[in-house]
């Protein structure tokens, strides 16, 4: 059975604007894909450890020495809107707060 998904909720979590048509399509397609995926719930026993990455490496550090870094102008060259050395975005906090 296709899986029922609360598309509006997931789209909010993903910060993604979707048209009504897209929502309808995604509801059906994701439901179908997840139906195929349901079988994996029964494959692995509880004692099988999860794998996050194929060749695990832990605590990969470098010496804590300053190195040359990207100049600010270069780093901000691709920003859609900027004000000097800062990026400019629409209001984040409520007025007066």
């Amino acid at each position, binding site marked *: 059975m296709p899986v029922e998904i609360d598309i509006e909720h997931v789209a909010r979590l993903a910060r993604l604007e979707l048209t009504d048509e897209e929502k309808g399509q995604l509801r059906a397609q994701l439901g179908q894909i997840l139906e195929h995926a349901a079988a994996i719930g029964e494959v692995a026993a509880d004692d099988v450890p999860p794998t996050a990455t*194929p060749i695990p490496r832990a605590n990969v550090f470098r010496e804590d020495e300053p190195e040359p870094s990207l100049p600010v102008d270069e780093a901000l060259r691709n*920003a859609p809107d900027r004000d000097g050395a800062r990026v400019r975005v629409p209001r984040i906090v409520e007025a007066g707060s």
Partner: protein
Amino acid sequence: MTDLCDLSASELSSKLAAGEISAPELAASSLQRIETVDPKLGAFLTPTPELAQERAAELDSYLGAGAPQTGAAGIPTALKDVLTTNGIRTTCGSRILEAYVPPYDATAWARLSGAGAVLAGKTNCDEFAMGSSNENSAFGPVRNPWDLDRVPGGSSGGSAAAVAAGEVVWALGTDTGGSVRQPASLCGVVGLKPTYGRISRYGLIAFASSLDTVGTFTRNVRDAATLLGVLAGHDPRDATSLDVPVDDYVRGVEDGIAGLRIGIVEGTYGEGVQPGVQDSMRVAVERLATLGAEIGEVSLPHADHALSAYYLIAPSEASSNLARYDGVRYGMRADGVHADVIEMMVKTRGEGFGPEVKRRIMLGTYALSAGYYEAYYGQAQKVRTLIIRDYEAAFERFDVLVSPTSPTTAFRIGERTDDPYAMYLSDVFTIPANLAGTPAVSVPVGLDGDGLPVGLQLTAPLLGEATLLRAASALEADLGLELRPPLLEGV
């Protein structure tokens, strides 16, 4: 007619070293081919002819007698447009990065450029490398040089088509679930996905970080060995990059496979595999036996679940990686006055991403969300462990595993776009190697009844690239295929 751009990198390297040809002549041959065939193929998003000419002219003064032999110097090269290039637009095939000009080079390109390779341009691909047909590019499809009505495969479709059509001598792609091997198979070229971590991912714009691998497209196995030798090695800028010595992949690549134990993966002749693909597989397996390999059968018992595990893990990682496209620091921002920053982000992402990327972001967000995490993402990670164990068991009995690269040859443009699950099935043979991190290569082994190339996939244990390429080279030499797509007749 054969032009310089149709020769292999090893042949061209010798001619350059002997002073028989010059780097500018070679670059001109490649640029001419791009001009002739790319209007039909659409392989390039950003050709860089001026840069190529400048670079070739620089090389001209010191290539030739006595110059250091890198194997890559002067070779016309293309890069999939998910690898960053300093000062050259890098789009990922997406509207959201349509105008993005990176301020840094990917390590893979920095190494290749340092060895003297000549960049001919950035190639088309599925948006953010998500797809198996190149139909998900925001900038139009790529066509297969063997049949212009068919897909080149994906997601690195532009790089595969460019190498098959002689637009460049070799190209880089990326492989997260088969995105180098499957298009190589569909376009009749050699596609290598090395061990996870063997080539730095620095500057590879992330799709699924635990699966993403830089890979190569070449017209023969020896060139793949040369190219891997240039690209492989530790990079402190990628924490998952492996700090282990790099083998000499070229030396010994033609030593043959007498006594090599080769396992044919169960499902190779299964019902989902086209008869034309099965026929070419049978011929190739016979040849391997004749060459002295010991052939047996092997099963990867959990391979049936690899597709499902992959289509939970990769979208989950993608939904996290692609959160960075928010219209703030780089990329497009939706036009208009926005009430607040959240509205701006929501609209930017809605306008900037195409349908497949939205589908995977939604799938991944769902699989990681509260209440579903254990059932989907958590369970998929356990299946990943089982697949790794399957490989470990298989490699106790065999040195190399063999299967088709793709269950089908190139399909028609538009044939599978309405059914995402049918499209995902293209990757059924390639995905397990990404989940396990093992190296794998696709080699052309024949043409089907429609004259379309068939690829055979070889898989080796972690860091087994030298053996992998030796087996691929033996098969290639024995089959001796002359692969020249019909597009090039009369060119």
